[in-house]
């Protein structure tokens, strides 16, 4: 009896082990598509980009694939480049100012639309237009509007007696112009995410706050803002990552000019690799990697912030 039981137990254990072994393989088989996908489309390109940035590429060695390893030379060159300081500063200014305005205006609009007045849904949909337009269309339109001589903005300024501004062609204004356009493009994203965040705040809390005698301003700063914090954090993070690498808008509007006045890391990296007749893939990849590092830094900051919240 006991032997029978023990043998039964043993066979059960065996089948379980077999099953576990087979399950192991099945699990890997199920995992394989995503693993292969991640390796092929994330890990390998990242590795290639890192590799590109650590080698001294000329067009000849690019074709023949025998570029000598040059360590951090490309990074040293990039740091020593007189364009580095301004490009870094422009990247930070572009990102921080864009995000600040996008978030503030997006939040204001979200609170406004949360009141659900008549036609608010239609109006909200209209605000999404910048998001729906292809970037080449909106950027070209902005660049026509801001044209020094025939742009509608300068024409309008002329009507109220203000001197024309060289929006895209003056070193003092070029960065401001691309920031303005970028804010306009980013507002809908902030509006949509923050609006859905507002929907998740229960009405009872507002009612309670109203009963306690909180006025509108207090209700916003004491109720809405703190309860919206998790949503705000993710909106800001996504906005940061997205804004850091904005390239097409700046390239279409100013090409990073005049004379580097609106060059950010993204346009600088592009110009190294593809912007002249002679591609310089090494420094281009190095600048690209610096961008990845900056995005990573903000990502880690977000994770820390989230942990502290939890």
């Amino acid at each position: 009896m006991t032997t029978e039981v023990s043998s039964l137990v043993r066979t059960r254990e065996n089948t379980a082990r077999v099953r576990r072994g087979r399950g192991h393989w099945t699990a890997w088989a199920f995992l394989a598509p995503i693993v292969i996908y991640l390796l092929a489309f994330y890990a390998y390109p990242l590795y290639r980009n890192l590799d590109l940035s650590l080698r001294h590429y000329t067009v000849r060695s690019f074709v023949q694939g025998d570029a000598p390893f040059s360590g951090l030379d490309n990074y040293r060159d990039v740091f020593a480049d007189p364009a580095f300081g301004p490009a870094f500063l422009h990247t930070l200014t572009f990102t921080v100012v864009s995000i600040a305005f996008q978030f503030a205006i997006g939040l204001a609009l979200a609170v406004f639309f949360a009141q659900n007045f008549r036609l608010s849904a239609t109006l909200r949909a209209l605000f999404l237009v910048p998001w729906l337009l292809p970037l080449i269309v909106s950027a070209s339109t902005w660049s026509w509007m801001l044209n020094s001589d025939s742009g509608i903005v300068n024409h309008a300024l002329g009507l109220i007696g203000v001197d024309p501004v060289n929006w895209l062609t003056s070193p003092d204004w070029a960065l401001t112009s691309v920031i303005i356009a970028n804010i306009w493009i980013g507002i809908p994203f902030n509006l949509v995410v923050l609006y859905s965040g507002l929907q998740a705040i229960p009405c009872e809390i507002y009612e309670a706050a109203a009963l306690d005698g909180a006025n509108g301003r207090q209700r916003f700063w004491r109720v809405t803002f703190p309860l919206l914090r998790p949503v705000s954090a993710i909106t800001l993070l996504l906005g940061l990552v997205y804004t850091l690498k904005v390239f097409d808008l700046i390239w279409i509007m100013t090409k990073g000019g005049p004379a580097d006045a609106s060059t950010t890391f993204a346009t600088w990296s592009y110009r190294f690799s593809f912007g002249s007749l002679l591609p310089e893939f090494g420094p281009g990849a190095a600048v690209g990697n610096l961008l990845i590092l900056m995005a990573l830094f903000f990502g880690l900051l977000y994770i820390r912030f989230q942990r502290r919240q939890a």
Partner: protein
Amino acid sequence: MSTLRSAAALALAACLLTGCSNSTGTGSGDGGSAAGGDYQIWDPYPQFDDSSDWVKLLTKCGTDAGVTVKRTGYDTTDLTNKALLAAQQGNSPDVLIVDNPVVSTLADAGVLTTADELKVDTSAVEPNLLAAGQIGGKTYGIPIGANTLALYYNKKILDAAEVDPTAIKDWASLTSALEKVKASGKKGITFSAIGTEEGSFQFLPWFWGAGANLTQLDSPQGVASLELWNGWLKNGYAPNSVLNNTQTTSWQEFAAGDFAFSENGTWQLANAKKTGFEYGIIPIPSQAGGTAPAPTGGEFVTAPVQSETARYAVTEKLIACLTSADNALTTDTTLSYIAATEAVQQKQVAANSELTVWVEAVKAAKGRTSDDLGTKYPKISQPLWTAFQAALSGSASPADALKTAQTTAAAATK
């Protein structure tokens, strides 16, 4: 039922996969057999489809050589990278038609065969045009035609301002013409000073026209040419938007009818007829008088290196066909280019006397990568466009801007 369906899906997927690999496999440069088979031609003329004269010519040249031609048209800015990548992967096209300043880059990368190796006859080609494809005493490819820059003018505006375009022979007479135009209430001149290669292309006629040399950007002659542009902007003879204008947007400004002059290329001739106003063309004057050397535009027909050298015999036939006198005339008329050989140029002028100015301009023109600059040119061009952008936008004086540019260029080309 579901197993049946998934089996069918699998079979379909397999068909698709094999189908794909079949069609791409035979097309690639090293995939086909040496005799007969498919020959790949890449060109930067995506505006032409299969019904165009250009593609018909390619097909005919293939048929004459006893092969099938597979043609792909790429955007010109895209083509350099595509060609480099293809060379890296070992599937370069048999014939590559590429913008002339890129030839030296590709030759430097070891991507192109020399004209000697391919036994292509380049003797009839004008030497100043061929120079863009010559590096270290070797010739890579043969120009299919050339274009360059000149000044288009709006006749009505010049008449109203009492300016005689034929009297414009040097910078002083051009600037005084602009002054008169401005006084008559119209706008002076439009060009492209954008911060890309296009801007450098437009600046070079003035730079070279002052007698400056690309190896010394901050020479007094170089500074004089930038001061000319700068003066036009300061005095309002040229709009501030030139800093952001491509050659196309600058042309649109001219075509709107408010500008007296536009610095633009041969390729706008067809559009000039559509503007609806009377226009004329004069060569770009040099500082001291006479025609300034403008940079040559236009493509070279080149043959990328193949692992199967037996293919070169057919490639040579294709190139000879494309650049033969009769076909060059068709091609250059289609592309609105000036031919690269004297004989065909004469035919073009005989057919259309309007081209006389352009033939003269092309004769005076100079390749950007000529003077054995080769791959140094891009490293000089970029500081140069940064310099004129800085000066024209007012962030540096012409002399200072060019001084910085020279330091950068010297360091980059060391």
